[in-house]
């Protein structure tokens, strides 16, 4: 810090180092301790003015001021918050529960009935056509226990 700068800081902020800019306070203190004569006159003059400034009393609020402000504010409407640009409403993605509810919800029965009728007709056709042999002498397993659980890994 130059002597010129320290004189400028004293001229601006006065003699009390606590009021000086944070970044320069340490360096200024060191300079003044090294060479107090560097800014002696400025410091003395600033100290005299500071003493006067310190003696100027601050205005204190009158006792009823806070209550008056509260009463006035209570009767005052607030401004509206700034409106943000409305985002386009996203298409709702139904959750699992919503889908389940939709599936179970009562609705027209004709699609279900049509499907059931088609399945029954197909079964009747297969049975009557003899494509599948239901002869009891065939090698069908007689019990569930005799089933050989095969490897379905290639199928599934």
């Amino acid at each position, binding site marked *: 810090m130059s002597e010129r700068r320290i004189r*400028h*800081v004293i*001229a*601006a*902020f*006065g003699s009390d180092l606590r*009021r000086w*800019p*944070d970044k320069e306070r340490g360096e200024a203190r060191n300079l003044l301790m090294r060479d107090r004569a560097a800014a002696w006159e400025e410091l*003395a*003059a*600033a100290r*005299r*003015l500071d003493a*006067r*400034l310190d*003696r*100027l*009393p*601050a*205005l*204190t*609020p*009158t006792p009823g*001021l*806070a209550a*008056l*402000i*509260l*009463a*006035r*504010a*209570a009767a*005052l*409407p*607030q*401004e*509206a*918050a*700034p409106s943000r640009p409305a985002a386009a409403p996203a298409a709702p993605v139904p959750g699992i529960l919503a889908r389940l509810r939709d599936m179970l919800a009562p609705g027209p029965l004709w699609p279900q009935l049509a499907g059931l009728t088609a399945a029954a007709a197909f079964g009747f056709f297969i049975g009557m056509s003899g494509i599948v042999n239901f002869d009891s002498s065939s090698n069908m397993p007689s019990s569930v226990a005799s089933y050989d659980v095969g490897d379905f890994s290639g199928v599934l």
Partner: protein
Amino acid sequence: MGLTKPKEAMGENSDEVLMGRVAQRDGVAYSCLLTRHLASATALAGRMVGNRADAEEVVQEAFLRVWKTAPRWRPDGASFRTWFSRVVVNLCIDRHRRPKPAPLEAAGDPADGGMLADQQLAQREEAAALARAVALLPPRQRAALALCYWQEMSNVEAADVLSLSVGAVESLLVRARRSLRASLEPQLSPGAAERRKK
């Protein structure tokens, strides 16, 4: 809106949190902000406009603006204190380009109740002379001095309040203090106190 006394717990919140609640029409938060900043705002306005009536009108207006604009308020990097000080300073500057101080009123009450009457009078006259000198400063110089000296803001914070560079604030301060020294020179010169006693 229920404007009641601030709750103890509310006092622990930062100004910015309280301001968010004021935006929700929370009267308790508003009351807490008021309690926290009333004295400081009154002192600042008093230094700026130089008399009680105008200072308290400015303070009222500033706090009503807090209430009114809370829903639109955004910190934007500045603290509530900085923003609110800016409101007070700007209202003062707008209100009185050239303040008309009531000197003895601006000088306030003597600090020491046991002081002799002539000492009290001398002290009040001295304070009144300084108040007059401060009142003659251009508004921005007065604001820089009030913020940096009496409000004890840093140069950076004062620059934020005044929307100026730090260098510009320093220039205002140098000119303000130089003007005050020139105005008060006879009283500031070494030995002036002794001369006054005689």
